[in-house]
């Protein structure tokens, strides 16, 4: 509602909707010992690929400084982009994906959401390996400003202890 109002006001002012939102910045990460964790990605052909945090970090790495719904103090998250991970597994054209967590949590994310929200698959926080107690070791993070501004962003998409990604049939 408020967003629509903002859009409306901006539209009325004749200004383009300026995206002053925080974007994950590319950052080269030095190798690091991670907590034992696995993220299995099922491709559209049924093939599966298992990523450890280290394997994930072989994809282009990024950094994002932001709060989350559970962190009042901003933290420096590091990891890879969900879009890169999906592209690497042929899921970039899937309509939606289902993400499952180690504790059997499951959520379906439509493509529109992952294309718009620049979801970071974080493996490190403040230069340290991400821990389970801090909702790691593999956590989906969205810059808080983007998260608040987007009408399609939902807290459900911010999966922690991510364990598996599969396309929605």
């Amino acid at each position, binding site marked *: 509602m408020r967003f629509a109002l903002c859009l409306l006001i901006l539209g009325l002012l004749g200004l383009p909707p300026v995206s002053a939102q925080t974007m994950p910045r590319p950052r080269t990460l030095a190798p690091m010992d991670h907590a*034992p964790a696995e993220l299995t990605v099922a491709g559209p052909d049924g093939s599966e690929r298992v990523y450890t945090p280290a394997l994930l970090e072989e994809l282009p790495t990024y950094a994002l400084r932001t709060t989350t*719904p*559970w962190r009042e103090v901003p933290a420096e998250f590091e990891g890879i982009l969900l879009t890169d991970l999906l592209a690497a597994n042929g899921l970039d054209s899937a309509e939606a994906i289902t993400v499952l967590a*180690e*504790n*059997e*949590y499951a959520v379906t994310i439509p493509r529109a959401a992952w294309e718009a929200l620049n979801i970071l698959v974080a493996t490190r926080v403040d230069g340290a390996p991400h*821990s*389970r*107690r*801090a*909702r790691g070791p593999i956590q989906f993070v969205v810059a808080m400003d983007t998260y608040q501004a987007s009408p399609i962003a939902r807290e459900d998409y911010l999966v*922690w*202890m991510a364990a598996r990604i599969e396309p929605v049939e």
Partner: protein
Amino acid sequence: MPSRAGLRRAFSGLLDAIAARLGLTLTISALLMMGLLAGLYVERSAQQAEESRQVFSDRHIRNGFMSMTDVQRLVLIFQQAKEHGGFRPETRSDFIAASDFLYARAQHFRQSLEGQVESDYAQEAVRSVDAVVEIADRAATATGDLSALWQEMLAANNEARRALTIFLEDMGRLQNEVMQDQARAVREQRLVVLASIFGMTVVGLASLLLLRREVTARNARIRAERHVEHLAYFDQLTDLPNRVQFHGYLTERLLRPEPVTLVLLDLDDFKGVNDTYGHAAGDAVLRHVAGLLSRLAAAAQGLAARLGGDEFAIALPTDDPGALTRTLAQLLQDARNGMSFKGEGLSIGLSIGYATSTRLGQGRPPSLDKFFRVVDFALYYSKSSGRGRFTEYDSALEGRFRERQSMVEELPHAITGGGLDIYLQPKVRIPGGTIYGFEALVRWNRGGQVVSPDEFIKVAEECGLIYDIDRHVMDVATGLLARFNRDHASDLSISVNLSALHFNSRRIVEWVREALATSGLGTGLLTVEITETAELRDWQEAQAVMADLRALGARIAIDDFGVGYSSLAYLRSKVVDEVKIDRSIVEMIETSDEARFLLDGVLSIAGNLGLEVVVEGVESRAQLEALEKMGSTRAQGFYFGEAVPADQALAALSKVTVAAPVAAVSG
């Protein structure tokens, strides 16, 4: 129980009150207030439901259940480890992961509760999970016997299950409340909606009723206005346009260049119809005539109107004299054909006057007043010329009429003021030409101009002045002759003309008696001359009057014999002494054998019946000789002397009488 009419009146009063300015203001205010209250009520109810929905969130319930699951998972792994006498490496890693889940879950749980659920149950549930995590953390690093920790874990597990169950039940209760709130909100909204619908229905019905009343009242008003307009412009009895409308129509027509003919009509003897058959018949006659006129006007694209009483008018857009004559003749005929009233045939006579705008001269149409005035005159003329006819206005006609009118006005003054002069024309014996008497003739000295009786006697007869005139002439003439006879020891006779009208009453007998007594004229010297006219209707009565006059010593003469109504019947009448042969007979006596035979016959018959015959209009010697030859003994005419003022005639005769007294006496 109040009557239906009472209820209706009360309801009407209520609507009136609502429709008044104050009522309307109050009603609108009340409606707005009701709307506002209903809106506030709905809003408050929705807000309540929203508030309880915010307190309740299925997220908390999920967190509660997930916490139970996570605790259960942790306890199961711990139980395996205890049974195996200690953690194996992969079990330990699973255990740590499970405790991490629980830790994260507890943190998540706590955070999601913050600011939303402040209940003790919630705090206790989170604390109980925290307690399990604390034991798990100790167990993860523990070596050796786990039994003590297991006992702790079981107790914490039971406590967490209990606290979470209580929390979940509380949340269930909250959920129930939310649903109840929502249900109540829905109920309340439905109530408000129903009340609003009811209110709107009532308002709508009241509006419709008011509208209907308004429309009904407006229709009634329009009908009343139409009725008033009809009253103002139409005659109620005949439904013809009335005078107002007719004047308006005619005024408008006169502004146009096209000719317009104004026709005014009067019913002849309408009073008689009313008196004889009653007013219902009178009304029926008026309606019948109105029907005739309106059909006529419609056919001619004119307008018929009733001006009032038995006066009607038509305006016709034509100046064709032939068409007008035909139309009006047909109208007279149609009216005369009459109508049937209660089985009685009533013939209706109309008197009509009309004039056409283009024939009134001056090259421009007349004013409405003049138009009416001249047509009124034409109508009056029709009436005074015997009714049942139509007359087109003509200025010459009016001139004559006005002349007659002024005579009627002036004659009385002439009679009393000495404006009437007595002229005398000698009556002579033939052969010899001796004057034995005079015929008294009246002349009107009207402002220095002498008016002959032909011009005013008819008028005087019509307006009743003839009685005064004849009596005046008789008084003066008998007076003059009586004095002359006394002064000159003569016995000249005097003939006085009396209108036939006198013979319808006995009054004349008294007048003659008075004249004879006052003057002292000798017996047999007064001759009363009567011209037979239509007015001498009752011959029996007239004969009786004549007999009375003769008894007074007057003689009776029939004037103008041979023309008009005079007949031989008079000759055998016992009351006639003298017959005066009309001048028209004498005029023809030299040229017409018939005239001679007629005169001869009359002289012969009259002589045999003992009547005296006076031949009038003798103007020549030849006529006199012819008369002498036929044995006529009395004559009168220019040849012997014309009518001159009485004093002149008598003065001239006194010279003759003085000069030849023997002749006069012997004649």
